[in-house]
């Protein structure tokens, strides 16, 4: 690390990482061209790598990158013979030096290029898969090929998905703006939903999938940006808390590539720093009517602070699920999670009694046979459990899940 070239590379990477979203956001606002904006930021990073070793790392790397990116935009636009007015706009683009990170709320709440860009990328008028992919693209600058790999689709599919999302933003007049007041709450929810999807996509990754693993970390970073930009939004805070708390279990969820359920995880391997950060974030949430992310974060916090599965406060967890169900209407997936909590509070037989109703509500839901098999196993009904484990293995979505279920099947005497 004493090598000056390394130090420069680290400085460039850090500065680009920190400033990328703001740079892309302002360039997209001015040029209305996602590809150009991304290209300019990329170009600025390359220039920094070439110049900084000689000129030294600038005092204000953000401003340096902004000037370089703007210069590139001007060059490209001039070559394209773009009208004078747009060139003027690029020249007068707000410099990040002038951007006070604490000044959110002036002139209007949520008035920040980064947030405007996220509102556009997460617009409900775009297909959901396109929202998630485009958000990841503008936030990280990953290549289309890398994003395709992270989402386990072909590069052609991902390229089409991104193209279509960018195309609709342009053609349908999806503006980079703060939504009208009566749509604002729903639109903030839409942004949070995309961030949580990004996180879940990464969280479901097994070990040894670094690209997917990185998604969860990117989602957390984006969650931090959202909290900074919307400091009064309790759901943004709650979502960040939820992600930090879930992410803390990352290292314990897999052992040698095999899935470990929460009640069997080695709690020593939970990331204390991440738990503490999550708990602090959750504690900073206002005392108003809890939203859906807050309730989920409360559940995650109860798990994170329990010394063991047996010593978990299942009464409060079931209560939080009840509140979640009241808030979100009858969501069968939440019902299923609630049922698992009930099985730990009241025993597996009680939970099994309420399963048939869920069976009807969730036909073909892949986790249902796995949950039923587990309840039967815990109730000591091995033969019945084996039938459901076989069914669960049949519908499992990942190899890790299949291996885990096969192990359980062996435990109950099946094979």
């Amino acid at each position: 690390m004493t090598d000056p070239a390394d130090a420069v590379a680290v400085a460039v990477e850090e500065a680009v990482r920190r400033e990328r979203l703001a740079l892309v956001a302002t360039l997209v606002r001015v040029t209305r061209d996602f590809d150009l904006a991304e290209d300019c930021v990329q170009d600025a990073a390359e220039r920094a790598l070439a110049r900084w070793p000689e000129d030294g790392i600038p005092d204000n790397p953000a401003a340096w990158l902004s000037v370089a990116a703007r210069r590139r935009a001007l060059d490209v636009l001039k070559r394209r013979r773009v009208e004078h007015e747009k060139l003027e706009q690029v020249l007068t683009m707000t410099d990040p030096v002038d951007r006070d990170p604490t000044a959110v709320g002036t002139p209007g709440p949520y008035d920040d290029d980064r947030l405007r860009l996220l509102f556009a990328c997460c617009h409900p008028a775009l297909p959901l898969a396109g929202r998630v992919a485009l958000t990841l693209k503008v936030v990280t600058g990953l290549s289309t090929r890398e994003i395709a790999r992270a989402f386990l689709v072909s590069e052609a599919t991902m390229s089409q998905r991104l193209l279509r999302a960018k195309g609709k933003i342009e053609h349908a007049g999806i503006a980079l703006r703060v939504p009208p007041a009566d749509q604002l709450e729903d639109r903030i929810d839409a942004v949070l939903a995309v961030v949580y999807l990004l996180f879940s996509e990464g969280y479901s990754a097994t070990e040894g999938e670094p690209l997917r693993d990185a998604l969860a970390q990117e989602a957390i970073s984006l969650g931090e940006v959202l909290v900074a930009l919307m400091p009064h939004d309790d759901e943004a805070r709650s979502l960040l808390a939820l992600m930090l708390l879930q992410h803390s279990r990352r290292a314990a969820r897999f052992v040698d590539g095999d899935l470990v359920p929460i009640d069997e995880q080695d709690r020593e391997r939970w990331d204390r720093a991440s738990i503490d950060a999550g708990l602090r974030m959750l504690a900073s949430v206002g005392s108003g009517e809890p939203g859906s992310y807050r309730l989920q974060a409360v559940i995650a916090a109860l798990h994170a602070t329990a010394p063991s599965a047996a010593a978990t406060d299942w009464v409060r967890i079931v209560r939080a699920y009840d509140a979640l169900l009241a808030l979100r209407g009858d969501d069968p997936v939440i019902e299923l999670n609630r049922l698992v909590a009930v099985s730990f509070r009241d025993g597996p037989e009680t939970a099994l009694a309420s399963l048939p109703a869920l069976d009807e509500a969730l036909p073909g839901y892949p986790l249902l046979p796995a949950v039923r098999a587990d309840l039967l196993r815990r109730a000591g009904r091995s033969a019945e459990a084996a039938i459901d484990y076989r069914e669960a293995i049949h519908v499992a979505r990942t190899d890790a899940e299949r291996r885990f279920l096969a192990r359980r099947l062996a435990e109950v005497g099946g094979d």
Partner: protein
Amino acid sequence: MRYAMFICMDPEASEADHAAAPPIEGWFDHAIAKGEYLQGIRLQSKDDATTVRVRDGKVLITDGPFTESREWIAGVAILECADLDEAIEQALRHNMAYEGRLEIRPIHSMGGPEDP
């Protein structure tokens, strides 16, 4: 930007949906006052529709609208809005957002970018 807002009938809408719908007069007043309403067309019932096409040189004339779905287009409003969010805001004030459904489509500007 100019948008066409297709107004579709939806037989699935419930009594409560109809009851929750704001009166249409307020919609016109607001849209006109904002300068976002350019034109509107209200159509006769789908029972009066005739579909025409030519295939392999043969003229086919059939009774009814071109879609088989139970929803059918009852009218079109042409809006001039700054962006999609403004158009959505107009749609949300329309009684047919409650009693039916609204489809917002940008109008192709001839000579502008090709439609995707």
